[in-house]
């Protein structure tokens, strides 16, 4: 059952991720990206990490993608895309060659990969629960965790700095 669910979710994830790129309409792209986030949350639930699943939906699907949709609606990108974007033959050839090369490199790299399995006897199924996650974050990985928060602070200060009204500038 779980295995079937995994393959169903994975194929859905890949399909939606592809549709993000293929869709002509940017709003459709964003909506497919939101479905992709949901399927990734489904993967987290399969791994028994409910906290990560919920936070993934709250942060990505609930906040960041709303802003994406917001900006796309404001810019009204849908109008231009309906006519179809012309791609020159040269960039088509370049794209094919680059994509093919990447494909070959990926196959070469993945050929000898060993998947790090897990030992069912020592594996802790509760590892994704919020208590365990909090303990790990605040003991073992305290420094990276705090540094990440400093990074967020810097980003916030930068955003305020950019959005601030300069002397003599008038918006309205």
């Amino acid at each position, binding site marked *: 059952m779980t295995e079937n669910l995994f393959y169903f979710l994975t194929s859905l994830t890949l399909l939606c991720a592809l549709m993000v790129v293929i869709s002509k309409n940017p*709003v459709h792209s964003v909506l497919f990206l939101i479905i992709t986030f949901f399927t990734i949350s489904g993967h987290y639930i399969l791994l028994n990490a409910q906290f990560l699943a919920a936070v993934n939906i709250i942060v990505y*699907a609930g906040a960041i993608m709303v802003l994406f949709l917001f900006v796309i609606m404001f810019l009204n990108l849908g109008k231009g895309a309906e006519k179809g974007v012309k791609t020159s033959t040269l960039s088509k050839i370049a794209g094919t060659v680059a994509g093919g090369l990447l494909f070959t490199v990926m196959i070469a790299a993945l050929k000898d990969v060993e998947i790090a399995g897990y030992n069912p006897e020592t594996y802790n199924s509760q590892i994704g629960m*919020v208590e365990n996650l909090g303990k790990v974050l605040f003991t073992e990985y305290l420094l990276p965790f705090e540094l990440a928060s400093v990074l967020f602070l810097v980003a916030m200060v930068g955003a305020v700095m950019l959005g601030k009204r300069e002397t003599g500038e008038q918006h309205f």
Partner: protein
Amino acid sequence: MESVDLIYKAIYILAIFGVTLLIATYSTYFERKIAAFIQDRVGPNRAGPLGLLQPLADAGKLFFKEDFIPAKSNKALFIIGPGIAMLVAAMSSAVIPFGDTLIIGGHEIFLQAIEVNIGVLYIFGVVSLGVYGLMIGGWASNNKFSLLGAIRAASQNISYELAMGLSLIAVLMLSGSLSLRVIAEQQAGFNWNIWYQPLGFLIFLICAFAETNRTPFDLPESEAELIGGYHTEYGSMKLGMYLFAEYINIFVASAVMATLYFGAYNFPFMLELETWLVDATESAITANNIVTLIGTAVMFAKIFLFIFFFMWVRWTLPRFRYDQLMKLGWQILIPLAILNILLTGGGILLKDYLF
């Protein structure tokens, strides 16, 4: 999971779904009756005794109206929009504990559809998705006023989600758990969270008004400037679904407030009542079941009180201006919520130090 449990869960989920829809239906009736009472009118009184069949008449009217789709709209998204609004609204009542355990035939039945250890985050996640219904519908209508309404809804919801999340953190610090069942159990008797979190509750209440797009925060559909806001182009039952989703959201917001701050199904002297009932009926199971049923009734009474409060505010206060709304959210509520977190943390430390 045993098949008996599975069947019980299925029945319970259907029952909660039905109750949610019923309460949302009659919210429309009481909204109009309360509006009439506040404005010194009679209100709906034609369909049935006291106008009680008015919601059915409204629904019938909406179903039989022409289902109109504007020519230059995005057809698929135009139809999906109200569907998402309705789906997301109906999803969130799943984790709310409407009562304590019932014991029937040796089976312990907890009156909650699904118990997850991240119940609060589930509610928060579902609420944050609610805005998609409005945004998709507003954009797909291909109408400037709809788009403006959708954009207003999106920015308003994102702004007030922050303050809402921060006010929830103070509750989580007190309870030490994300599970709504645990939070409800901790407030046994009269030990409600509101006594410890008055400021947090006030912030949560204001944010709940903003998240459900109710007056004084109903700018996404302010008819004076935007015709109808995001549902300008909608008619028939699609419009009905948008309006209905709003009432379901009010019900869920009331239930969440009752659970988090007003003791869920707990009521004063419930332990004394249970010991007295055990003596009176000489059966612990009957006593437990009676107390649980009273608790469920108390929970619904609290929910109805909050729904009434939502309506009372709607017909009392005027609407905010948009810059005032943003200023309230970002410059007043968020700093207050952070102050509330600091105060709560200080209070918890002080209690550890003194006792």
